[in-house]
């Protein structure tokens, strides 16, 4: 029996996920023959041929007309737009990294080299510590450096440069020098087939380092505004881009530059019973959990997108927990030492007497990010829903 699929032009497409599923779905976008998003074989009982389906549904935000004319863009196109705006506005801005010249492995820099020249958009040798080290030098000399690390998993050779050099430059020189003009971009997070070294979320490693800022957007509109803010910000910033959203997330995004402030969390949905906090792709998972909770349990959830991991918006989260009394934080990164532990620790310090239940963290397991077990590993909506139920019934 085929479940009905609601498809409408330029709105969200809903796909039912699940390992044991009797229904077969085919979806079409706008009635076009070429609009199939997730193709599933129509032969009955053919589980082996099923292609992996995403664990989340992307929820685009309503179109924001405050910043002028908008255009339909997916995540990588919104990044390209932000970079284009930056290079146009700032004559000292340069973009560099592995393979960025032809457009990048995720198409984030397509067309920029042709438009701005090979002196401003160029490839580096395969050397992450060199990319960041070079970026620090560019920034110290007053130019704007936008460095790309091809996958967040590869950022570790540059860890020393980021933590020991970039983060401390201003402090150790008594404000004589700084590398605030540096922004590092890296694709981040699970993608369905990434396995150990193409799926990691390393924000917790860097959260331990004062002097840098870490930002993770949830959508194309957010990404462009936040990336432009990172580039403008006079501190070294790391901008993690959820790679699974590069094509899957489509929204109307303003063509002109606009800025979304850093260190400000956003309450996406107000609620009174429990606070849910996440960032990046996971925001869409908890949004779905919130609607499940409303339907099945009659529970009203307040959904918060943290956006900036460091320095994080303590006030918004604590105010919310003071109101609801329950907090669940969810992220793909492993549980132990993940950023949820920092949030949890601070919230229990600030809101101890408001808490009705222990703070719940729904995260990845303490294992390397698995290949074949990805579906079991990630904190999907069922795990989140289960944790929420336990919190409500505490």
């Amino acid at each position, binding site marked *: 029996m085929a479940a009905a699929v609601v498809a409408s032009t330029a709105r969200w497409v809903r796909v039912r996920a699940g390992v044991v599923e009797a229904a077969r779905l085919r979806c079409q976008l706008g009635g076009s023959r070429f609009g199939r998003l997730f193709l599933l074989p129509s032969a009955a009982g053919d589980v082996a041929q099923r292609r992996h389906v995403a664990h989340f549904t992307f929820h685009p935000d309503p179109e924001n007309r405050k910043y002028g004319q908008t255009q339909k863009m997916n995540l990588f196109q919104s990044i390209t737009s932000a970079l284009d705006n930056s290079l146009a506005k700032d004559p000292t801005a340069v973009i560099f990294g592995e393979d960025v010249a032809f457009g990048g492995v995720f198409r984030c820099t397509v067309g920029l080299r042709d438009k701005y020249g090979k002196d401003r958009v160029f490839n580096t*040798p395969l050397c992450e*510590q*060199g990319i960041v080290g070079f970026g620090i030098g560019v920034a110290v000399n007053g130019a704007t450096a936008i460095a790309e690390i091809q996958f967040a998993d590869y950022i570790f050779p540059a860890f*020393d440069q980021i933590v020991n*050099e970039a983060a401390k430059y201003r*402090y*150790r*020189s*008594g404000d004589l020098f700084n590398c605030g003009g540096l922004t590092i971009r890296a694709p981040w997070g699970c993608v369905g087939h990434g396995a150990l070294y193409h799926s990691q979320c390393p924000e917790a490693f860097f959260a331990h380092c*004062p002097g840098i800022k870490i930002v993770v957007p949830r959508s194309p509109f957010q990404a462009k505004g936040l990336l432009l803010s990172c580039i403008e910000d006079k501190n070294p910033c790391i901008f993690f881009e959820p790679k699974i959203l590069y094509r899957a997330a489509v929204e109307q995004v303003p063509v002109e530059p606009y800025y979304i402030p850093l260190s400000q969390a956003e309450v996406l949905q107000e609620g009174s019973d429990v606070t849910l906090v996440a960032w990046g792709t996971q925001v869409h998972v908890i949004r779905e959990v919130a609607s499940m909770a409303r339907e099945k349990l009659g529970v009203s959830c307040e959904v918060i997108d943290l956006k900036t991991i460091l320095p994080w918006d303590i006030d918004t989260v604590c105010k919310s927990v003071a109101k609801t009394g329950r907090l669940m934080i969810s992220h793909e990164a492993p549980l132990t030492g993940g950023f949820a532990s920092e949030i949890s620790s601070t919230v229990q310090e600030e809101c101890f007497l408001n808490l009705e239940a222990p703070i719940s963290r729904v995260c990845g397991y303490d294992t390397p990010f698995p290949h074949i077990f990805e579906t079991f590993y990630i904190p999907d909506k069922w795990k989140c829903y289960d944790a929420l139920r336990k919190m409500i019934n505490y």
Partner: protein
Amino acid sequence: AGRVLLAARNFANDASFDIKKCDVHRLEDEPPTTAVLTREEGLKYYKIMQTVRRMELKADQLYKQKIIRGFCHLYDGQEACCVGLEAGINPTDHVITAYRAHGFTYTRGLPVREILAELTGRRGGCAKGKGGSMHMYAKNFYGGNGIVGAQGQIFETYNMAALWKLPCIFICENNRYGMGTSVERAAASTDYYKRGDFIPGIRVDGMDVLCVREATKFAAAYCRSGKGPMLMELQTYRYHGHSMSDPGVSYRTREEIQEVRSKSDPIMLLKDRMVNNNLASIEELKEIDVEVRKEIEDAAQFATADPEPPLEELGNHIYCREPPFEVRGANQWIKYKSVS
């Protein structure tokens, strides 16, 4: 002063010296084997080298008195390197070095009192007392850096510099020991000037300020002409141990140090040259010594008496231009406001 003026008329204006030939790697030309030193230059180099020497010895003294704490890597013995280098480049060129940085900090223009105050961690220091020995900065001088991460990075840097033909001179001050390990025991090849492989290199006598100057001029001209980077190995020696916690004699003999001091001391070499070629008199140079000693004493006084930076400074300059936020102190009831 009048006496000096009278005496000056009897001196030669300049003299020409033979300097040691440099070994070269992948180069057709070489730096010259003669150098001209004017009286004025000679006096200047002498004064600067003597200042660095006395400054380092004063730092040693202050460290032993526990007025300087933390890390301290002294530069005495290697003065010809920083002075010769500065003589071969322009003030608008950029210099960056590793932790043995006090000499370069001075030659790049910072006064002794700011250097010593930085070592003692006072607010008059060049990094407001927050950087310390290893993190001194000045205009066109980017420190002063620790080197734990710099392992293997140098080869990646050689690659990028050669690929993009960057006008960069890579300098190795080879003082024969890496901390406590002699170069023969640490390096498969001790011909460091050849280790740039595709990058041309020269090996220079680092105890002779003229040799360093001529080699630097040669290397700078090469880089400025757009031919790409170059490597310069300066063969030099440090009298102190690696840092203040290293006596410096467990991996080398006192005789060795004495030998270098008596035969190749850079300040002594310059002095002998100038006196023997009638560029200056011994009395004149002694007067310079007295001047330098006084300057260092005054600077040490300042460094000892200057107040430490206020505790509020602890949280400053972590980020730029944030609305001031609070940084937790040693316990949860102490908070510092971070201001940028």
